């Protein structure tokens, strides 16, 4: 902090009664920079771990879960089917039963489109309309065809595909 003392009064007394000379002013400057530097160092030494501590859950890798949802014979092409399932997962320090579901669309020959149940607009649950043969979202009128392509409404992207595996005629999907 700079003092407002006039330059000329080099060794006179200021109103605090302390002798103030130009030499003392530079000492004051030295100390205030020193204090500022130490304060900055303490602040940085605290800020770095505290920031890491606060954002750490966001940096975590998502757990992977694979869930068996039935035999491939259960699913017929042209007839999307919603499959509900649940799995155990970590939620912070707890283990919870996560309920979830996927839409399974058989493409024939052991190939599938498995869709995440969340609309790509703002995450509402959509459903299959069997008369119109389209996926309809009730929230803001999003419409998708059987391959997940957007036909109408605000959704910006096609339906999100979920990874799956077929082994010995059994269908397994990645749970989220």
């Amino acid at each position, binding site marked *: *902090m700079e*003092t*407002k003392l006039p330059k000329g009064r080099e060794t006179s007394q200021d109103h*605090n*009664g*302390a002798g103030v000379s130009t030499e003392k002013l530079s000492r004051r400057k030295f100390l205030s920079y020193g204090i*500022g530097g130490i304060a900055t160092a303490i602040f940085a030494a*605290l800020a770095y*771990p*505290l920031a*890491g*501590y*606060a954002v*750490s*859950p966001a*940096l975590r890798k998502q757990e992977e879960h694979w869930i068996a949802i039935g035999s491939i014979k259960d699913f017929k092409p042209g007839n999307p089917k919603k499959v509900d399932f649940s799995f155990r997962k970590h939620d*912070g*320090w*707890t283990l919870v039963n996560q309920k979830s579901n996927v839409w399974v669309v058989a493409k024939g020959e052991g190939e599938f489109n498995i869709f995440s149940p969340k609309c790509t607009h703002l995450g509402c649950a959509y459903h299959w309309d069997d008369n119109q043969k389209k996926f309809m979202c009730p929230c803001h009128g999003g419409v998708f065809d059987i391959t997940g392509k957007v036909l109408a409404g605000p959704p910006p992207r096609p339906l999100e595909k979920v990874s799956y595996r077929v082994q010995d005629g059994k269908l397994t999907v990645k749970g989220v």
Partner: protein
Amino acid sequence: MVLRIYDWLDRRFDLRPAMEKILIHPVPSWVNWLYCFGGITFFLFVLQVITGIFLMLYYVPSPDHAYASVSFISHDIQFGYLVRGMHHWTASLIVVMVVVHMLRVFWHGAYKNPRELNWVAGVFLFLLMMGFGFTGYLLPWDQKAYWATSVGTNIAGSAPIIGSFILKVIRGGTDLGAVTLVRFFTIHVMVLPAITVVFLVAHFLMIRRQGISRPF
């Protein structure tokens, strides 16, 4: 950079006179390193407030979750062991520093007229620090926490006549359980900090008004 921001604000709000009045004041020549301990205590208190707020980001004061959320902080959150460790060790260090500060004030006779009330404010601050320690000790909800609090509350319960009533008030019932944990938590993170700030402000205003005492 900081100075330029300060200048910018100063040109608009004329901060300089007020800041100089607060920051620039004479320190008597007899002041030496022994006078640091109050300031160190205050620094540690600020550190406790900061690390405490960060611990609250993950801590849950319920018997189902307290132990697991604390171990989650220590083992699963980045720097969690560090933040918890700082809060843990500073809790002990602050008591040491308060006592050293108190001894210095006592040794120099700084509690005498006209500073009696600041000594009294100091005693309250000391008791508040003890309160932080006692209530904070229960929060991890492990064996040590549980039995230490069991013993501590039983001491209060051993007072004649009103003892058993006091015991129930402190525990929120006959047994040490969920109700005890939440009330200790609330006292630790809300009640004591609020009261402490009031006493700190009083302590500092009195020091500023009366100046630092001449030793002996």
